[in-house]
């Protein structure tokens, strides 16, 4: 029973991953990240992703607060934030977030405030999608591990 469940979960996981890849939400880098996870660091991916969420939320807050400010002019600082965002996003393979960030940076390079605001909204939207999807992914992963963990003793 449980073993079957694990297989189903694995299929679900794969389907979700395929979907994320197809939608361009994630790219190969995520797989690279997964490959780095082994027995020595079993929670590597979730650890990194959690750091990512933490950092990103901070960055998003900063971006929003600085853009909400009426007499806002510090585009350089925003560029630094965005560079960070781009770097971390590409590290975990969040392709779409990264692309939006690139567009955002382009807008900020041109001091295009309207463009920045639009990009920020889009970014928040994308980020939200990413976060939900990754949470979903981790949930399934955890279930799978649980299921697999249950199964192994039975087999042994």
């Amino acid at each position: 029973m449980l073993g079957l469940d694990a297989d189903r979960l694995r299929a679900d996981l794969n389907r979700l991953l395929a979907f994320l890849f197809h939608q361009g939400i994630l790219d190969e880098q995520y797989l690279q990240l997964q490959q780095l996870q082994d027995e020595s660091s079993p929670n590597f991916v979730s650890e990194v992703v959690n750091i990512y969420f933490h950092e990103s939320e901070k960055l998003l807050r900063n971006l929003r607060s600085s853009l909400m400010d009426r007499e806002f002019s510090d585009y350089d600082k925003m560029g630094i934030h965005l560079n960070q965002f781009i770097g971390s996003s590409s590290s975990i393979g969040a392709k779409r977030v990264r692309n939006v960030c690139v567009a955002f940076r382009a807008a900020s390079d041109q001091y295009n405030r309207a463009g920045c605001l639009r990009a920020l909204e889009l970014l928040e939207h994308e980020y939200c999608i990413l976060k939900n999807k990754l949470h979903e992914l981790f949930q399934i992963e955890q279930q799978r591990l649980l299921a697999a963990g249950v199964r192994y003793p039975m087999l042994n």
Partner: protein
Amino acid sequence: MGLKLQQSYHHSVTVKVNEQMGTKRGYTFIQANRAWLPKFLLLWVMVMAFLSTWIYKKMDADNKVRRKEVLSSMCDQRARMLQDQFSVSVNHVHALAILVSTFHYYKDPSAIDQETFAEYTARTAFERPLLSGVAYAERVVYSEREKFERQHGWTIKTMKREPSPIRDEYAPVIFSQETVSYIESLDMMSGEEDRENILRARATGKAVLTSPFRLLGSHHLGVVLTFPVYKSKLPPSLTEQERIEATAGYLGGAFDVESLVENLLGQLAGNQAILVNVYDITNSSDHLIMYGHQNQDGDLALLHESKLDFGDPFRKHQMICRYHQKAPTSWTALTTAFLFFVICLLVGYILYGAAIHIVKVEDDFHEMEELKVRAEAADVAKSQFLATVSHEIRTPMNGILGMLALLLDTDLSSTQRDYAQTAQVCGKALITLINEVLDRAKIEAGKLELETVPFDLRSILDDVLSLFSEKSRNKGVELAVFVSDKVPEMVMGDPGRFRQIITNLVGNSVKFTERGHIFVKVHLAENPKPTEDPKAETCLNGGSDEDALVSGARQFKTLSGYEAADERNSWDSFKHLVADEELRYDSSVKMKAADEASQSVTLMVSVEDTGIGIPLIAQDRVFMPFMQADSSTSRNYGGTGIGLSITKCLVELMGGHISFISRPQVGSTFSFTTVFGRCKRASFSDTKKPNAEDLPSGFRGLKAVVVDGKPVRAAVTRYHLKRLGILVEFANSVKIAASACGKNGSSCGSKTQPDMVLVEKDSWLSGEDGGLSLRTLDRQQNGHVFKSPKMILLATNITNAELEKAKAAGFADTTIMKPLRASMVAACLQQVLGTGKKRQPGRGMLNGSSVLGSLLCGKKILVVDDNMVNRRVAAGALKKFGAAVECAESGKAALKLLQLPHSFDACFMDIQMPEMDGFEATRRIRMMESQANEQMNGVTEEGSIRTGEWHIPILAMTADVIHATYDECLKCGMDGYVSKPFEEENLYLAVAKFFKTKPISDS
């Protein structure tokens, strides 16, 4: 957003239009002076009017001069004649005077009396045509009057026929011509003019003339000529008085000037034209008229005067001639001038008209140009609009598709699933279309830029083929690719776009082909090889001609045996290509040298199918967007017809051109050329590793026999095998293969024993004795202990029954499904050739990471990155390879950690960091190191410099791998760079560069 974008775009378009107008409008001379044109015309007309007037005047003046000359010559002529006639008459009168003096006075008694004189003068009158008559008057002084009167018997009378009063002397006429006999006995001294004449004549001794007066009798104007007659011959030097004394009488004659001149003029031509007047101008203030009417009208403007000399020095005469009529208006001059004017007027008008026309045409031209610019701008705007809009559509479409995918993942009833799937298929079709439109628009807007990266052409072709393998297999269409060996392994270009082109063409072919084959062939475009090696031909072909005849009545030497539109891919020409390659191995060094010489390589790619072909009428619009052969095409086969136009654009962007040959119901062959750059050696070796990963090298040196009746297909099979390093021989049928094996087995031993035999399904089925000979083949091989060749069946599609049959026939090993791909073939062969070989690629992979592990194992590495996530990932990646990782979150922290002496073996440095970026941090680290090195060298002279030097390898981590960045990395002292995010191969490459030497020096 869209609206605003459009607005701003519209603005930019108008600006552009204006700019173009400003720069393009060049004015010609005529255009610049268009306002002046009517004035020019007017000026021209005026100038011409003036000119023609001048011409008229000139001609008229010429006429006048000529008229004047005519007049003067006529006048002079008349005057001369008159003068001549006059002097002739005068001479004759002179002769008469001498006659009288001779015969009247010198003879005694006188020999002349009235009768004689009258008769003589009458008979000589023709000599004096101008004289109405002559008479002789004797000088009688008063004292002799009575005696004289007595002697003659009449009294002397005055002119008024009265008896003469008493005078000092008289001059009565004694002899007279009959015509003037009425003056006999008249005293000539009584007439005023006659008296003066007589006195003057006897004083001068010459002929004298009176002023004109009305003659007696005729009442014509006339003059009287008087000659003195002396009594004796006079010596020339006599005083006046003596002459008077010696005077005996006077001979006189009357000139009837009027009739005289009348006669004279009557004889001359042009008499009517001119009017002649003769004047006595002795008294210069009062001209006396001798001939002509005083107040006759005539052309008063023009007259000519001629002097007349009648032999009397005292009297002066002149002749005045003028024309009767005024000078006639000169019609020639007038018409000439007028015609000239008219012609010039016309010429002027023509020029004016031409200028006006030019102006109009130029105006039109400018207008057209403006319209053209606008149209072009509109076209660009359209493309940009399309690009924008399709981009905008794509985003929500992705959402729709994603949601549909999610929906399909949920629990749905079958109907719902069907609906959702339909929606997803439609959505996918729509997004493909949008992508195509976007591509097209991008190309039209000139936005599409091609990459130049090294890529492996062959693997791309394999990928494309694998995309379509499912479809083609279902249809039973044979799909094959062949790349000439001369095509370099790696080329520089845009792999994505190349793939797109191939996918488009092959996709089309798959769509329209129901039987036969689709064949993609790539070779060098510069392939003019007329030399064919007959030996190679026979060698390769064997008895293929017979075979072709045997296997079917209408069998073509193409891949599948179906007829193809373009003959170029049939075996006849294809074998040259293959033969070429054979030759190439012989002279590979030479060829390689030639290959290296040129920077670019032009490839000729052709995609041949045996589909329905393109109708002839549609062939010329195949490359036009949204055009399909006819509307039924899209009904039957779907598609938008934009693919080929994009393909064409892409091919042209790549510096090539595309063409096709198609025959309806036979097939189409699309061929295009494209220019790629050659890979340089250095980058070649760099990039070779990640790209050529999929072809294991474990088959190198193996031998295979391909059994295939169709040489083209055999060549394709060989191409794939050759890529795996397998040596290939051909056999036309199983029988030949079997015999060849047998021969090899017996004569040459195991050395040339093939490792595998690949048999094409067709040749296996067509050979009647297929099974039998296979068995023999098997048996023979069984004779050899160590190795039996593996039997492999090649098939496009195969039914279960056939499969069973094949297994029974001896193809126990495996069946390779077409289309062939090197990687797939490799996988199958691995499976066939057993476990020993299977392990090989896996081991290779293990080797890669274990090498990296050994390189990094135990190394202490510092990762500097401000981004926590990146830091974590980098650390994770490095830890995986056994390195001990420490992190620093800024350049400053890194500097602190790297204070000498430290124990780090390497440092990965992010470039973009706030406060202090990677470049700056590296510079400082290097500065620190060089200081330390100097100090150390100063202190420890004997210490080995090489081991003692501080130089920590610093690798840049950067997201953009532009060359410029790389250069800058090197400039500030970094040793290399790793592109972010980390990838195993990249990391390996970067690390290997310096750790390879470093451990040696360390250990």
